[in-house]
C-alpha cells in the first residue's frame, strides 16, 4: 500500500471484513467484472492464484467475488450469504485453485464470466493493497485499469487508426483522458486498449467506436 493522501484512506473504507486485500478488493473485482459484462451474470468460473488460492477461503474471497458479480459493494452485509443468493438466482459457479506461474501477482484472480444473453469475457485482476485492484488482462490481452474512472475498453485488430479514432471521439465529446494503455498479441493480431477518463462518454460515441473494434465496453467508476 502506498502513501495515503486522504483521511478516508486511513479511516476507511467502510467494508465487510476480514481483509481489505482478500475481501473488499475481491468484491471490487466482481463489481468491475459485472460492469464490463454489462448484463447479469449467468455463469462464472473463478480461478484463484497465489495467496488467493492459499487463504481465499478463510478470507471469504469466494463469497466476496460472487457478491461483486451480484452487484453488491464492499460494505454490503449480504456478502457472507452471496453464494446462497447466487444459487437462488441460478448463477452457475465453479471455483478453481490454479497456478498461473511466477509472472502473476501473488493476489491474482481470473474470471471467465458469461451473461444472460450469452456474452462472455475472460478477466484477470490483481489486488494491490488497501482494497484497491487492477484489471490486468481482458480476454487474454494485457490491459491496465483500476475501475476508479470512466473507462473505455476495446478489443480490435492491430491496424492503423483505432487509437486515433478513439481519442478523436473522446476529444470531440470534451472528455479528458487520465490514463491510456495499449497492447497486442502480435503485429496485425488482436489488440486491447483501455482508456480511463475524467468524464463519461455518451452512448453515441460507443456506436462510432463499435464500427472500428470487435469489442467495445464502457464502464462507470466503481467506488
Amino acid at each position, binding site marked *: *500500500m502506498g502513501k495515503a493522501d486522504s*483521511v478516508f*484512506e486511513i479511516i*476507511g473504507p467502510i467494508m465487510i*471484513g476480514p481483509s481489505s486485500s482478500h475481501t473488499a478488493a475481491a468484491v471490487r473485482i466482481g463489481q468491475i467484472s459485472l460492469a464490463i459484462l454489462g448484463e447479469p451474470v449467468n455463469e462464472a468460473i473463478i480461478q484463484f492464484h497465489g495467496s488467493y488460492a492459499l487463504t481465499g477461503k478463510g478470507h*471469504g474471497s469466494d463469497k466476496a467475488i460472487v457478491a461483486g458479480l451480484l452487484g453488491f459493494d464492499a460494505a454490503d452485509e449480504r456478502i457472507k450469504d452471496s453464494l446462497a443468493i447466487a444459487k437462488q438466482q441460478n448463477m452457475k459457479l465453479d471455483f478453481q485453485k490454479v497456478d498461473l506461474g511466477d509472472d502473476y501477482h501473488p493476489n491474482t484472480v481470473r474470471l471467465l464470466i458469461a451473461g444472460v444473453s450469452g456474452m462472455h469475457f475472460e478477466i484477470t485482476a490483481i489486488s494491490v493493497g488497501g482494497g484497491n485492484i487492477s484489471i490486468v488482462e481482458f480476454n487474454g490481452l494485457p490491459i491496465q485499469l483500476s475501475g476508479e474512472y470512466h473507462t473505455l475498453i476495446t478489443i480490435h485488430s492491430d491496424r492503423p487508426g483505432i487509437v486515433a479514432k478513439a481519442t478523436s471521439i473522446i476529444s470531440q465529446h470534451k472528455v479528458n483522458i487520465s490514463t491510456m494503455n495499449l497492447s497486442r498479441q502480435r503485429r496485425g493480431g488482436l489488440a486491447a486498449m483501455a482508456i480511463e477518463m475524467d468524464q463519461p462518454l455518451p452512448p453515441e460515441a460507443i456506436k462510432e467506436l463499435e464500427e472500428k473494434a470487435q469489442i467495445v465496453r464502457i464502464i462507470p467508476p466503481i467506488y
Partner: protein
Amino acid sequence: MYYETIKQLIRLAGRQKKPIGEIVLAIEAEQENESPSTIRGQMVISWEVMKQALDRGVTDNIRSVSGLSGGDAKLFFARTPKFLNPDVGKAVARALGVAEVNAAMGKIVACPTAGSCGIVPAALLFAKERLQIDEETIITALFTAAGIGIVCSMNASISGAEGGCQAECGVAAAMAAGALTELSGGSATMVGHAVALTLINMLGLVCDPVAGLVEVPCILRNAGALMQAFLAADLALTGIKSRIPVDEVIGAMREVGQALPESLRETALGGLANTPTGRRLRRKLT
C-alpha cells in the same frame, strides 16, 4: 496548508491555536475541494459504522468463517477483570469485539487497516463514555487520528506486508494515543509524545497471521495495542517526553519494517504461523 510530519502538524496547531484534528480536517477539505462540514459528515458515517461494530462485538455470538475466532470479546466484556481498571477492561473487550466482527465478515471501518480496526474505535468510545466527551469532539478526534495515520503512511507504512504488525496495530495504537491525548486536553506537543511513546513500545512487532487469516494473532493484538495507547496517552499527559523525537521514531519504524524478513511480513511463513500448531491449522484450513 500541507503536512507530512508530526512536527508540521504540531506547528500548524500551535500557530492557529486549534486542535490537530481541526487542522487535518481543514487540509482535507482544501485538498478535496469540499466544505469542512461535508468532510465531517463523511466521518460521522464512519463513526456510526464503528459504533455498530463496537456494540455487535460484545453482544452477538460471533464465530469466524474458519472457526478460529469469536466469542472472546463477549466473554471478557461480561467479566470484571482482576488487574485492569474495569472501564479499561470493557474498552479492551470492545477492541477485541470489533476485530472479531471483522473476522466474521461483519461490517467495520478499516482503521488504518481491517486487521487493526478495533483499536481507534474502542479508544474513542472509552473517551466518550468515561470522559463524557460529546460526539462532535469525538469526530474531531477521528481527524487527529487520521492525520497521525497519514504521516505514518507517508514516512513509514501502514501495511503489514510492507512493515509488519507495527505498521498496522502499531500505527492504530499511535493514532488512538494521539486522539486520546488531545481529547483529554493535552497540547499538540503532548500528542506528538503520545504517538512516539506508543510506537516505541510497538516497534518491531511482526505480522505472522496463522494460516494467513486476519484472526490469530491479529484480534488479540488489537487488545494489546489499545493498552499501549492508554499507557502512552497517560504518560504523555503527565508530561513525560519521548527522548527520541516523534518523526525520528516513525523513521525508525520504517527502517525496522524494511529490515524484517519477508517471512514476518504477512506471508504467513514465519512466527506464530510457522509453529507446529500454526502449520497444522494452515493445512486444515487451506
